[in-house]
């Protein structure tokens, strides 16, 4: 492997009660890679995301981002180090405006303090204006700038998914985690999503790890696939390899239908 490793997960485990949700899971991500994490329901995929974002801490093992251990860090610190994510079920701040959702993603990069807010200093106003400009730039990617003042909850489903991706991008991540981005989308929407993912990856220099059940989508877009079953990694490799992997096929109920 080359030395531009962005993420290095070594043998992480977490147990809830008697259940080993993730069991000695390891995975490397190269800088710029687009990888998929697949597996049957309950395999522990979202738990891996939660471990990566500091919602849970692994009971054993380590996670390094750019050589720096992050598995004991708090969620907000991990976010500031460059990991952002979207959710299986969309979690926007529904009462806040589209623009405010994006601005929240930029929150920690604003410098001004409370006195500058109270006194409305020029520095504060300049910074607010600049952040707003940046947020609008992001919204333009998906033509959402005209809806900037609408409450996020009022957007149609597809646009909410897009907004959630933009909000993640607003944190300026190095690694973007997408949890079932194609869920609830029809065929043409899924095709559109593939273009979007390729485009943002290029434009923002991202490394992407995605969880997805739509196998056509995964096989087509991912360069490398990691397969989880009952918290254990059973295979890793390029799509054509995974498609014909006996253990993977067995994990998916003994048929290979879903994989082709």
């Amino acid at each position, binding site marked *: 492997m080359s030395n531009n490793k962005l993420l290095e997960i070594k043998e992480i485990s977490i147990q809830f009660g008697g259940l080993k949700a993730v069991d000695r899971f390891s995975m490397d991500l190269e800088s710029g890679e687009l990888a998929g994490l697949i597996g049957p329901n309950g395999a522990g995929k979202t738990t891996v995301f939660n471990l990566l*974002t*500091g*919602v849970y801490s692994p009971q054993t093992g380590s996670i390094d981002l750019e050589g720096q251990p992050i598995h004991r860090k*708090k*969620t*907000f610190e991990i*976010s*500031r180090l460059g990991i*952002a*994510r979207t*959710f299986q079920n969309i*979690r926007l*701040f*529904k*009462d*806040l405006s589209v623009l*405010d959702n994006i*601005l*929240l*993603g930029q*929150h*920690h990069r*604003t410098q*001004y303090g*409370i006195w500058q*807010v*109270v006194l*409305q200093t020029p520095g*504060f106003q300049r910074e*607010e204006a600049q952040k707003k400009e940046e947020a609008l730039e992001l919204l333009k990617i998906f033509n959402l700038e005209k809806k900037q003042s609408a409450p996020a909850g009022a957007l149609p489903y597809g646009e909410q998914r897009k907004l959630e991706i933009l*909000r993640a991008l*607003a*944190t300026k991540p190095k690694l973007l985690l997408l949890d079932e981005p194609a869920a609830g989308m029809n065929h043409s929407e899924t095709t559109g999503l593939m273009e979007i993912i390729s485009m943002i990856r290029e434009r923002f220099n991202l490394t992407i790890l995605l969880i997805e059940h739509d196998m056509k989508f995964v096989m087509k877009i991912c360069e490398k696939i990691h397969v989880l079953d009952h918290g254990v990694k059973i295979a890793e490799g390029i799509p054509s390899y995974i498609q014909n992997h006996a253990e993977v096929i067995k994990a998916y109920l003994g048929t290979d239908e879903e994989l082709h």
Partner: protein
Amino acid sequence: MNEFIQHIINGISMGAIYALIALGYTMVYGILQFINFAHADIYMVGAFASYYLARFFQLGEHPHWSWFFIALGLSTLVCALLGFAIEKIAYRPLRKSPKLNILITAIGVSLFLEYAGQLLFGVDPKLFPPLLTESVLFSIGGINVMSLDVIILGISILAMFVLHRVVYHSKLGKAMRAVSQNSTVAAMLGISIDRVISFTFILGSSLAGIAAVLVGMRYPKIEPMMGMLMGTKAFVAAVLGGIGSLPGAVLGGLIMGLSEEMVVGYLQSTYRDALSFGILIVILIFKPTGLLGTKRIEKV
């Protein structure tokens, strides 16, 4: 008629004070969904802080504008620090425990402050020194507008204006609303939940500190238990306006101040303190979400 207008003026100035304290209850509730019972005792400590400052420098003997602002600043600072410390020491370790635990802890902190106050400051009431000379600012048609009422209202409006700017027009306010809606997602956007919560307590407690000096000048009798009744009334004001809603707390405070004044003026002054409990009962029966509150749908 003149008497009526006089009552309105008194009611508004008292209502503004209730509003300042109610805002503290409602902000903490908005972000953590629990009632900080110690809030009114923070207010009491603020009053004593400025009392001792005034006594030490004998400010009461030469009332002056600058004394007033120094006392106001000290009270605000003491209350902000106390609110910050209480959250950090007593509530933060319980963040992940059931809401009931933190609620009981809040009652514990409240009792601690009240009895520590009795121990330190003494049980007997103290006389808050006049920091400003009370004078008739102007009179229209026989109605005397007192300087104190104008100051109370002016300072309250200024404080609320600053609060509005912070909450609705800055990243801090957005972060507060994000944390109250979904703290995990907020953290994933790089927002430090601990800092936002600390900040909320500092902001709410500062308003209590301002209220402490204003009340001290209006009703100069201060004692360690003074927070109890004030706290109950401000809490009812927050519930009346809709707990969790900032405009609701201001509205609730004004209604509370005005209706109390009317009870004193036209019924019997002994009913004054019973009124808040009456309002609480009525609001809980007919509109539990309060006047401006929205129903929170709890996901099960």
